[in-house]
């Protein structure tokens, strides 16, 4: 973690999906950066995302298999309804059921060490 991103993981530890917001022009941005590329303000805060979005793109990772992950691993790029995009995992979904444009919802996954990771599931699925 560094000074520019630790806050996002702290929000995740509180079960929240954070989005950085420029206080100069109120533009949302992700991944976080120390300065706004539009108005150059260094001032920002964070808003909590609704966690709702749709699948912009995805890939199914099958090989090589690294320890600590369950394969096949469905990775998604999610267009959040707030307008920013986030890279994450799609859980509880068979690889053949993932598709472009499907609605998804964020949930927090906790690994054995207690580290919390915002991931997604298909909207309405268990």
């Amino acid at each position, binding site marked *: 973690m560094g000074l520019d991103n630790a806050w996002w993981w702290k929000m995740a530890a509180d079960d929240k999906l954070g989005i950085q917001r420029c206080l100069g022009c109120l533009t949302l941005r992700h991944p976080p950066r120390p300065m706004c590329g539009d108005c150059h303000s260094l001032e920002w805060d964070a808003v909590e995302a609704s966690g709702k979005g749709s699948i912009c793109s995805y890939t*199914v*990772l*099958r090989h090589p298999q690294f320890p600590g992950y369950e394969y096949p691993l469905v990775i998604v*790029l999610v267009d959040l309804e707030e307008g920013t995009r986030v*890279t994450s995992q799609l859980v509880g979904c068979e690889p053949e059921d993932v598709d472009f444009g499907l609605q998804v919802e964020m949930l927090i996954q906790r690994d054995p060490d207690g580290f919390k990771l915002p991931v997604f599931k298909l909207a309405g699925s268990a």
Partner: protein
Amino acid sequence: MPISLKDEAAIAGIGLTDFSKQSGVSELSLAAQCIKSACDDAGISPGEIDGLVTYTLDSSDEVEVARAVGASDLSFFSQINYGGGAAVGTIAQAAMAVATGQASNVVCYRAMNGRSGKRMGQGVSGDISSSDLIHWSWYTPYGMLIPGSWIAMVANKYMHRYGVTREDLGRVAISQRNHALRNPRAYGYGKPLTMEQYLNSKQIAEPLCLYDFCQETDGACAILVTSAERARDLKQKPAVIRAVTQASSRGQEQMTSYYRDELISLPEMELAAKRIYDMSGLGPDDIDAACLYDAFTSEIIMQLESFGFCGAGEGKYLVREGALDVDGRLPNNTHGGLISEGYIHGMNNIAEGVRLIRCDSTSQPEKAVEHVLVSSGVGVPTGAMILGRG
């Protein structure tokens, strides 16, 4: 002082080591061998080298290399970042140095035990401190650890949007493998690839399968850049640098530029294309052959669009009509490329561009090759150049 790099510098020598999966020697040894070979090719002594350029990822520092090959005084040395995106960037540095008198004989090199040593496919790791490592921290916790996983996200979106099929990617892999069948240096030499083999191969990162990936190779490649004027007096026919540029565009990330509006084009390659066509006064119709960067097959189809050989979404048609084959509109990676010759991070694609200009490829097209387009890494800050006859 020249205000453009057009026709200022030329590639006068290329040098390569053997390619293998286990070189048994150090990367510094590979670097020294390929540089000596490039000097021999041009007919100059390594003592005449006064400039060296490599990749930030290369383990052989300039002064170590200089001592190893017996170079004397160096007046120019630099390193370019972003993996395979550095390939043409090293040539841009060398051409600028030559054109401005910073150095006379600049060698660009990349030496790697890419299979037996540090493998690119083993992913990123390390303590999170630099801005680059924080960048990777958005992906690694989710299991996106290898280049194929980063590229697959873009390839999938592009293929979905334009109806590009796995067979289209297979056609790229097979075209390059067919070139490699004639190149004794190539991994793919003597190993034909059929569409059936391609379609039945192991899925790695959907939609990409085993044969969509480049090789992992031990080997090295050096490119000697000098002034176009001097190159004409040396041993080989010069490959004159008609235009060369680096390119990175708004919102660029290293491999994961996922937050720009569309994921169905390569904005940095479009920038490179505009700049090299403007600089050279040439256009897509003037390009006779290409060595497009090919860490993954999908990148070839997208670049056909970036460099204006067809419109958006039409790259698949060029591939289907055999444009990339030796008798096609744009013979591409006639040595086999990174996919079927070996993966020397794009430097070996530059060497093939030079061979095409010299009429010296093992898959030399029958038509006259006046201009060759060479590009660097896809999905990263990159570059491109046009080589022409001297």
